[in-house]
C-alpha cells in the first residue's frame, strides 16, 4: 500500500495579501499534492498558492492543534517543554 501524506494549503488572492491557510489535502507525493491543491481549492483566482507537508510545520506555542497532531517526525517534547500553552491562555 502507498501511504498518503497530509499537505496544508496556503494562498493569497492579491500580491501583498497575507498568505492564508485555506485547507489541507492528502496525496501520495508533492507533485500530486500540487495538482490536487490547485484543483480542489479553486474557488478563487489565486495570485499565489503554496503547499507544505504538515510534518514540516513546527508548532510554536501549542501541542494540541492540528499541526502538532500531524507532525510526523516532530519532537513533541520541544513545544511542551518550552511552550506556554494552557487552557487559561485562551
Amino acid at each position: 500500500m502507498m501511504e498518503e501524506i497530509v499537505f496544508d494549503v496556503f494562498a493569497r488572492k492579491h500580491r501583498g495579501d497575507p498568505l492564508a491557510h485555506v485547507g489541507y489535502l492528502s496525496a501520495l507525493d508533492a507533485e500530486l499534492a500540487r495538482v490536487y491543491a490547485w484543483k480542489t481549492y479553486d474557488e478563487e483566482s489565486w495570485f499565489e498558492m503554496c503547499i507544505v507537508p504538515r510534518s514540516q510545520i513546527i508548532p510554536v506555542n501549542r501541542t494540541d492543534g492540528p499541526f502538532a497532531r500531524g507532525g510526523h517526525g516532530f519532537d513533541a517534547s520541544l513545544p511542551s517543554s518550552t511552550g506556554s500553552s494552557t487552557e487559561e491562555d485562551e
Partner: protein
Amino acid sequence: MSDVPTGLPDASPEVRSAFERLLLGLADTKRILGIRYSDWLLGAPSIEAGIAASSMAQDEWGHARLLYATLRDFGEDPELLEHDRPASEYASWDPLDEPFANWASVTAGMTVVDGALALALEAVLEGEYEPLRGRLEKMLGEEEFHRSLAHAWFNRLARSQGEGRERLREAVEAVLPATLRCMAPDDRSHRRLAETGLTLPAAELRTRLARLLNPLLAPLDLSVSAVQTEVPEGWDGTRGRGPGHPAEEAVERARGDLNRALFVE
C-alpha cells in the same frame, strides 16, 4: 445555416474538409474523454483524485464546446454537432469507445490519450490557422495540470511492485497503438493538412509523443517507437479513426438525450 463559412476561404475543398475532420475529431474526443473522466468523480483512489477527475471533465467539455463552436466557421451548426448526431458519426478516438475499467486505465488514458490530444492541439496552434490561437493557448494552459496529474500517477504506478504496475502496462498496451494512429494518421487527409501547414506531419507528431512518453514508459519496458503505425484495415478516412464508435450510452449522455427532450425546447 445562415452564416457564411469563413474558415480557410482560400483552401481547396479537400483541405477544408480535412481540417474539419481534424477539428471534429479533437472536439468529439474531448467530449467523450470528459464523459470518461466524469465517471471517476466517485470511485477514484482518494477524494482529491476524484475532484481532479471532475475538474478535468469540466475542462474537456469546455474545450470541446470551443472546438465545436469553431466549426461554425466551416458552415457547421454546433448545436446539431453537439446534440443531434448518432454515435456512428462521432470521430472520437478509438481508445475512448469503452469506459475506463480501473484507475490504472484512467492513468493510461490521461497520460497517453490526453497527452496525445494536447500534442495534436499544439500542432494546430503552431500551424497556419490563426483564428484558433487564443483558444488553443487557453486550452493548453489547462492541459498542463492534466499532464502533471497524469505523470505523477503514472510514475507512481509504473514504479510500484504490485498489481497496479501490471494493470498499467496492460492499459497502456490497450490504448497506445490506436492513440498513435488517431493522433497522427498516415493517410491522405492528414498529409494534405501537413503539406499546407495546418498541422504537423505524422512522423513529427509521433516523434513528439515518443519524447513525451518514452521516459514514462521505460519502467514498463514499453516504447512509443516500437508501435506499428500503418493505417489498419477498416480505417475510416471520413472520421479519421478506426471502425466502430463510442458506446451508445456515452453518446446519449454527451447529447443529453434523457433530460434534453424534457426540458429544452
